[in-house]
């Protein structure tokens, strides 16, 4: 699969949220039923770009995430395709019940955009670091859950989901992150992508950890360890085939995500493998604690959400193989 050039030495850096901002405008160009809602965070979620171009299709809801979810459902029932945006801590955090009933149970064609996800939000501290959002959305029937790895993937997902008449949750980060893919890299919701082949062990990652997994794999290859890297951008429906094949072919798995160890991508992978081909798994994740203030890179290091953390986990899981 074609990835960006030079990503391991001098990757381009763009925030994922820009991908949402650009993607929803492009989706909106093609479909005039697309409307965007926001809860007083229009600039930082990057909904501002859509607002600037289509002010009459932008709805400012104020700081009322519960209401935003219901309004979005109502708009969807009247034929609109709402993208509702806020920080991932507050939506789906504060409006989980509304997402459950008004959106998921009713199959409302609403796209939930969770910005500033993960610990990399940094200085704002624990309250603003969404580390549970994958777990609380993945458990909801009818909801698709997407965790893109970079700018391009966020953009492509934002555009692609407009064409699927189902509820979606997508989380993305605030900070600059390496651009792993290119404009032309194929992307399909529901299909995990193998970015690097390998036979000893598989790292299944999502979000910003995909890049770290590639770096880890490169480093490990110099030690003679042959690492497969899978970008599991769609958490739900999870790509069972890719996971089971990896389990069978490499016999050991590491999962990596900017999320709690319980209930997220790792948990989804464990469920799948336990059903089809149980193998040892190690988890690179937040170990059941709240985050804290700090610079994004300091925190990623401190919590082991880094290529070093992945390398350690790979070595550990290989011992258990």
């Amino acid at each position, binding site marked *: 699969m074609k990835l960006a050039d030079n990503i391991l030495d001098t990757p381009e850096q763009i925030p994922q949220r820009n991908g949402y901002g650009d993607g929803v405008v492009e989706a909106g160009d093609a479909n005039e039923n697309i409307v965007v809602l926001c809860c007083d965070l229009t600039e930082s979620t990057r909904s501002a770009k859509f607002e600037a171009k289509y002010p009459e299709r932008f709805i400012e809801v104020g700081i009322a995430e*519960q209401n935003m979810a219901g309004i979005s459902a109502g708009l969807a*029932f*009247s034929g609109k395709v709402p993208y509702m945006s806020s920080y991932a801590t507050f939506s789906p955090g504060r409006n989980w019940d509304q997402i459950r009933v008004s959106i998921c149970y009713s199959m409302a064609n609403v796209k939930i955009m969770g910005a500033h996800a993960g610990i990399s939000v940094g200085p704002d501290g624990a309250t603003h670091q969404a580390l549970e959002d994958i777990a609380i959305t993945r458990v909801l029937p009818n909801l698709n859950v997407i965790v893109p790895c970079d700018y391009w993937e966020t953009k492509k997902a934002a555009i692609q989901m407009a064409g699927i008449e189902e509820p979606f949750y997508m989380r993305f980060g605030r900070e600059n992150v390496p651009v792993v893919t290119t404009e032309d890299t194929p992307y399909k919701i529901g299909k995990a992508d193998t970015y690097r082949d390998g036979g000893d062990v598989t790292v299944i990652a999502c979000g910003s950890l995909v890049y770290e997994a590639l770096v880890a794999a490169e480093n490990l290859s110099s030690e003679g360890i042959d690492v497969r890297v899978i970008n599991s951008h769609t958490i739900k429906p999870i790509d069972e085939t890719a996971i089971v094949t990896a389990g069978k072919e490499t016999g050991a798995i590491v999962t990596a995500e900017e999320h709690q160890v319980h209930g997220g991508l790792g948990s989804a992978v464990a469920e799948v493998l336990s059903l089809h081909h149980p193998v040892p798994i190690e988890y690179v994740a937040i170990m059941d604690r709240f985050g804290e203030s700090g610079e994004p890179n300091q925190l990623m290091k401190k919590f082991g959400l880094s290529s070093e953390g992945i390398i350690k986990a790979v070595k550990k899981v290989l011992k258990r193989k």
Partner: protein
Amino acid sequence: MYYIKPLTPLCEVNDLGVTDEQINYIEDMANHIREDIIKMLVEAGSGHSAGALGTADIFATLYFHIMKNDPKNPDWEERDRFVLSNAHICPVLYATLAEAGYFPKEELLTLRKLGSRLQGHPHRGTLPGLEASGGPLAQGLSIAAGMAMADKIDGKRNRVYCMIGDGEMDEGQIWESLMFIGKNRLHNFTLIIDRNNIQIDGFTEEVMPLEPLKDKLTSFNFHVIETGGHNIRTLIESFKEAQDIFEKPTVLLAHTIPGKGVDFMEFKPEWHGKPPNKEEARKALAELRSLGGKITCEHE
């Protein structure tokens, strides 16, 4: 394309006043709805009696006189929409839809049973005429606001009606929605508050006082129409007043009697979430039949 019952071409006289015949017809419908509710609930063995009976007059007025709706064409683009936010009283909505012809009346007796389209709380998509799912209180109001917003964006002229319970107003989401509706001056939106003074744990003013409720609503930028919830003529006038207000959303603060029409249920919080047993149902039906739609009314 309005929904017109053969005997009562109501819509043509909409602006000209209402005939006694029309009023009688709506009253009859309300009474049928009440009878249906009793039959459904006793058969289901669980469900909410008080709010359902208490709002039958409002439902009959809406579906048989006020709202543009066509039971044969439930997805009609130009229809007015109704969202039941206090969704636990859905037996009244189901009965109304069945009386209006959205689906066969026989199906009413499947309420709350395995495989039924009449779920314990409404499930959007299962049953013609249902505009929204409900159950967890306060969600319906936001959904209805979203529908009114969509109509506004599209420049449509149909209206959105939404009912909420008074106890339901304890929920913060209600106030978020009210602020939003007020901000956007959704004059195509009419809220109906089932002001029956009860919720599960007792009387609203003891569980969580709402008064001065009219002041609250005014301060949230609604045009408030205080009205009796049982006199059909008053209700029609109130809904028409609402249609005539163009600078603001309107709310009908409708004073209803919980359990209305069945003497031993009226005003009793304990009937909020209970169905009648067989004996009680027999008594209730006898009472309703003898009333023949002529329900006396304190709030007018």
